[in-house]
């Protein structure tokens, strides 16, 4: 098991938003977390990355406890996050943004190799390498956010709604890129509102509702699950 969340609880102030969730991710998998706004999907990812602290429970990565580490040390373990809303460093150049992604990496030859690999996979970034990130279009910024996260050569990539606010064609492109990245051996946890696209890409999925995991299955079964269909595909059960 690459990543294991055990009975994780998170509080914002006195309000508990995650009521003890359990989640497992095997090496090489793509796991998606579906759910409505406020279900606790983003909080789950932020808790893995250490940006919010667990009030109880545990997160293990390769059997090592993550939940006691500060956020900047989590990255060193091999976990990178593409945060919700992309969170670019808008007044820095594309190249500077990528360099920051490799902040924890000391080997400059390695950084250069990774950067060239990313430029090859996402050529639009190579074209715009000296441009300020804030001047990129939404889709380009999403590519940059993904590229930036890959710069740390993570074993596992956490993605928070990479399709948010993008045109359908761009969404398709982003998901294709994610598939390519996964094929190079990067495990992924994908939080999405676009359930159809997410389930098509993922091996397994979890469904969250108000701070609990209510359903867990492989993607094909979830896709044909009547409750999921009613809630996320807007159709009536087939």
């Amino acid at each position, binding site marked *: 098991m690459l990543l294991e969340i055990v009975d994780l609880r998170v509080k914002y102030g006195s309000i508990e938003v995650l009521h003890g969730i359990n989640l497992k991710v095997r090496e090489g998998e793509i796991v998606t977390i579906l759910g409505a706004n406020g279900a606790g999907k983003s909080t789950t990812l932020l808790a893995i990355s250490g940006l919010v602290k667990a009030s109880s429970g545990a997160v293990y990565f390769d059997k090592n406890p993550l939940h006691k580490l500060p956020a900047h040390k989590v990255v060193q373990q091999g976990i990178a996050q593409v945060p919700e809303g992309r969170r670019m460093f808008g007044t820095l150049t594309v190249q500077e943004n990528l360099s920051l992604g490799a902040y924890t990496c000391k080997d400059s030859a390695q950084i250069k190799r990774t950067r060239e690999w990313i430029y090859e996979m996402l050529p639009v970034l190579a074209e715009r390498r000296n441009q300020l990130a804030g001047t*990129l279009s939404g889709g380009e910024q999403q590519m940059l956010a993904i590229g930036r996260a890959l710069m*740390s050569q993570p074993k596992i990539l956490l993605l928070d709604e990479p399709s948010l606010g993008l045109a359908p064609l761009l969404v398709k492109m982003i998901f294709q890129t994610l598939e390519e990245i996964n094929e190079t051996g990067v495990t992924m946890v994908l939080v999405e509102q676009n359930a159809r696209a997410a389930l098509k890409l993922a091996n397994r999925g979890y469904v969250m509702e108000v701070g609990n995991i209510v359903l867990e299955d492989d993607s094909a079964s979830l896709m044909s699950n009547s409750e999921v269909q009613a809630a996320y595909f807007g159709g009536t059960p087939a």
Partner: protein
Amino acid sequence: MEQFFQQLTNGLAVGAIYALIALGYTMVYGVLKLINFAHGDLFTIGAYLGLTLLTSLALTEHIGPVWGVSVLAVMVMGLVALIGALLDRLAYRPLRESPRLSAVVSALGASIFFQNTVMLIYGARFQVYPQNILPKTAINIFGLYVPLIRILILLASIVMMGALYFFIQKTKVGTAIRAAAIDQGAARLMGIDVNRVILMVFLLGPAMGGVAGLMVGLYYGQINFTMGWVYGLKAFTAAILGGIGNIPGAMVGGILLGVIEAMGAAYLSIAWKDAIAFCVLILILIFRPTGLLGERVAEKV
């Protein structure tokens, strides 16, 4: 012409001092969104530490004026940087998760604490820098004479600001500082230890502010425990003028304010010197609240 030139060089020297202090305000604001009201007092401490080291070590007598003052400047920078780091650790870091107003109140408290500590140690009266530290020569520039010290202040400031600019723009730690100023959460996701970035800012800013205190001591020869208030306010104005949070902005704003003030003092009335500086602040707040160099790129949402 003569008067114009003298006022210009004087304004440039004073402006460079404002710029050095303004950098401390703008860097702390950039990363923490906090106005460090104690920064002016770190400047005062720099002036007093400079005086103490100057008289007790007599460096300039042993290794000559230029080396003596350089070594002195490095020592003052190091000591004030240390005090700056302690200030963050004791007064600001415990309040990191608190509302911003708490940190501002803490800053005001720290300012009062520093001011009174200096007064208790050195007394409330003006203290005088020894007069024979740097040679009192004037340099001939196209037939016009400029005191050596003005040129040294300007050159030293430009070198320090250049070094800082290079550090912020070109090094890995500098890029991390800029990233943390834009989005602390995203910076942490990159593996940046934001507390270390803040520590860095509280070393660099006070170092610059402290050495500015030493410069004022050497330039005017007189220091007082309340001097940090006026200089701090002027430098703060300079930081706003350039665009607070923007490092080149603080440099430009400082120099510009120094020149405006000197010209105003010369051609309007010297009594209006401070009023002119604060009129600049009011005008910039009305007509260009982001400052001259603020907000270069709008964030795409």
